[in-house]
């Protein structure tokens, strides 16, 4: 889950970079926003992946 989330973070950034390099202004904005949305999804999944892990650690103590 964590690796996948990190992958999403980086992919979203590459999507934004690709949009700047390849697209016209109208499409650029759409793809840049989509790239940021992918990053936020990755961030949310990454944060979520840590919650049960911490709870398991606390149970061990």
């Amino acid at each position, binding site marked *: 889950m964590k690796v996948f989330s990190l992958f999403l973070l980086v992919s979203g*950034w590459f999507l934004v970079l690709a949009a700047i390099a390849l697209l016209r202004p109208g499409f650029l904005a759409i793809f840049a926003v989509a790239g940021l949305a992918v990053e936020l999804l990755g961030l949310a999944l990454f944060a979520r992946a840590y919650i049960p892990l911490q709870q398991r650690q606390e*149970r061990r103590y």
Partner: protein
Amino acid sequence: MMLALLDIAGALPIDGGTALCLACIFLVPCAIAGLALMNVGLGRSRNASHSLVSSLCVLSVAIAAYFLCGFAFQGAPGSSSYWFLVANKQWSWIAAGRFLLRDVAFDGSPRSLTVLFQMFCVSLAALIPLGANGGRWRLSASSLSTALLAGWTYPLFAHWAWGGGWLAQLGANFGLGAGFIDAGGSVVIHATGGLTALAAAWILGPRRGKYATGGTVAEMPSAIPGHDMAMVGLGCLLAIVGWLGLNSAGAMLFTNIAPGKVVLVGLNTILSAACATLAAAAFTRLRFGKPDASVCMNGCVGGLVASSAGCASLTPLFAAVTGAVAGVLVTYAVEFLEVRLHIDDPGGSISMHAICGIWGGVAVALFAPGATGQWLAQLVGIATVLGFVLPTSYGLNWGINRIWPMRVSPEAERQGLDLHELGAGAYPEFITHGDDFLAG
């Protein structure tokens, strides 16, 4: 007589603008001292000495790493860099400077002023993770993590935004406004430091006892209050002084404002901090019945952080709005991170620096008057800090943790890092945590 005076003025080694910039740069250490004091005050008394020593060590390591290779990777606008060609445009991705500052002439030129300013900026960024991870981060591991932040992650992102890199060139190359604008470092310094703090906090986990009561997982985290609110308040006031210098120097060096416009920068900075403090006080008063001291101070610093990006481009009204939103954001973020995401951030660093730093970048997109496409340039900058800095910092800290475990043992945590890592407490004449300390 007049001619003699003119001669003296002509013989001065630096002009008025340079002198003002230097004076502003020399105020920045106040911000560093302020953050260090806040980190100490918001931590436990058993970790107070350790927190201050860690701040000093981290500061030293950051300066050494930046001196060694950081500035060579970052560079300044106009200096040589490595680039690649995409869509017939140059994308400068890393500076091609010489290590140990061998290609810098220390003559009061903008390049030399940038070096001096960046020494303080990188120290500020390096202090941020300490605030979020106090009470459980080994001194050696935090120093190692700082070396990588100051020697690689920070310089690379700072080159893109401040050193004439591809983010700064978005306007010239792709018509996106004036390129990514971050005059005082909301994103470059604070979001970078804050996201590194977040990565380290995930890897280290919360302090013992934060989420457990009686061996079971608690619904609500235990409150572990800071031990010295007076120290936090002093730190907050010092930070205001330091931020005036930080924003003014950053605006002069990276957005090329005229020295007279520093008045606007100072006004925006203090307005944002004031509105953020008031917003945090009002919000905590509404939610909990009384204003919360630590959240108000976190809110004040959050306002300062948010003010940095647009300090030279926003009108005072929008600077005030930016600060007020930052104050509310800090209030919510502190609770959200602690209760919902189980991220233990004793100093509120992630809320103050990462979240308010990103908000500062967004505020420029929303409020700054300027060319079309500026909001896209800001969005690209924010996407870059999330997509590059967070994974890089996480990966580097994960690697350090595999080789050199970052977290202290449970026994060290119970005993306190002052005694465990330094051999002496900060307050030897007082029993400040007798129950834990004497309980065997």
